[in-house]
């Protein structure tokens, strides 16, 4: 991953976190990484744990960013979420897998496309 993409990705994650906080959610963790992969954002909203995959794109020339998340990738996200729940001793908590796309084609006005409950 190039430097530019990393910066874009981080910027997207920051945007999504503040979007979530504006809704009243509390961001628990960012970029939680284990051997099996990474969860971009983990938040808690009204007692529900949210595991969020954030996709950032600088243009929509290559299709919608969320199109790259297929069924398999969504299931992998769920496995990661369960791993987080297990390691943080949160068994029994309600949880949800969400996706967010951040479109930076207009640098000054990035647009967030938030999709709750993708599984």
């Amino acid at each position, binding site marked *: 991953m190039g430097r530019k993409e990393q910066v874009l990705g981080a910027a997207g994650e920051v945007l999504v976190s503040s979007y979530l906080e504006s809704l009243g959610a509390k961001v628990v963790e960012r970029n939680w990484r284990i051997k099996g992969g990474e969860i971009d954002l983990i938040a808690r909203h009204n007692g529900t744990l949210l595991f969020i995959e954030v996709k950032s794109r600088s243009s929509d020339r290559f299709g919608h960013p969320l199109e790259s*998340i*297929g*069924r398999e990738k969504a299931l992998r996200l769920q496995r990661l979420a369960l791993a987080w729940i297990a390691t943080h001793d949160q068994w029994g908590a309600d949880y949800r897998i969400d996706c967010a796309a951040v479109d930076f084609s207009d640098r000054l006005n990035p647009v967030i496309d938030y*999709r709750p409950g993708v599984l």
Partner: protein
Amino acid sequence: MSLGRIKSVALLGIRGVIVDIEVDISDGLPGYSLLGLPDTALQESRERVRSALLNTGAPWPNKRTTVSLSPAWLHKSGSGFDLPIALGLLVAQGVIPQERLAGQVVMGELALDGAIRSVRGVLPALLAAQEEGIVSALVPIANRLEALSVDRVKSIAFADLSQLMSYIHDGLLPDYGEAPEPQEGKNLLDLSEVSGQRGARDALEVSAIGGHHLLLIGPPGTGKTMLAERLPTILPPLTQSAALEVAAVHSVAERGVERPLLSLLPPFVAPHHTTTATAMIGGGAHTIKPGACSLAHGGVLFIDEAPECSPGVLDALRQPLESANVSISRVTGTVHFPANFLLVLAANPCPCGRFTGKGRGCTCSSLQIRRYLQRLSGPLLDRIDIRSFVEAPSRLDLASNEPGESSEVVRTRVISARGIAEERFKKEPWSLNSKIPASQLRERYRVRKDGSAFLHAELDHERLSARGYHKVLRLAWSFADRNGTTTPGLNEVEAAYQLRRGIDPA
């Protein structure tokens, strides 16, 4: 949640079934699922619809999209659902209002650039829609004339998606230019081109009058094909409803015989003798298509070099000959096609084809000659009333400048003869002489004494079988109808007997 609902039509044989296409767009990851037993071509519609929408500047939903075709149990196939799916997506996205498409059926394949391509079976589909009380339809421009022949459904044809969109948004009708009149194709064949051949001409005419199947035997180059091709020109023209049915079969097949839409000329279909039983009867894995015998519905099925057909191909015709329709069953379901045709078989007298007249040029052994026509199975020949020998025309016939009787003249006689038969049979379930049941030939439809005496003598001499006896009687009725005789007598019976020369009691 947003929904779009469009109606279209699926084909089961030549029967159309109204299909409801529902498009649901809901939050979730971008994805597309197509429900309702689609085949591969239909499964691929996603890619066509997507490109067509994007290339016309219409949006594609990057959301969870579910397209459902109901009734769900019916196997659906083909690309004709592209356009209704695309419109359903546009309705679900709020681009076009649902009300603009209420009560309409939509059909059409989409090209990647948004052009609307023709689909098969528009005619039967719209007939089904008409029965369901649907009053308007959106169809591909290439199918416009076909669609216009269904008069109680108002069809609007479009060349591409953007034309269709501007119709929906602003009511702009596409400009078709000068509407071409549906033309009755000039039939170039005429019986007057056949020189001589008195016997074969008679056989052809009687066959047309009574609906008798026909076997033409003769050496190569004597005009068997020429005669058979002209049989449709002396048959009575199709009725409007029959023409519609014929056009529906051809619309579903979308191949083979090119004939003008709604032509009243009975079709002529001549499959090659190497054809398979499936091509003859109809079939196919996903889409069950009509075979040659259904394409010949209402007209003539001509098989040249009949003894050369693979075993089984001709015998496959026995069922449609009996019931006038075919039923084909596949995994995807069972469909029925009409198959009411006049069968004309042509054969050489022997493998080398020269065993005729004095038979001097023939190089075949007597065994070969005997076996050759035996390749036509007994049960099949049983259904063929007329066997006619086509001799090489004499030098005199060829030199003659006087044209033979024209199709027009013969056809007038055929029509009036059929009229007489119909009048006679108006209380019966059949209307053609070839369909008189054997029992009725002995009761209500007996020939005059002198005629039956002649046949009884032939029976006694074992020159005629019981089966042949009934066939001669049916033929005699056709001769009587032609001559205007109320009941066949010796004349008619003798003439009829001539047409079975050499069939019995072999």
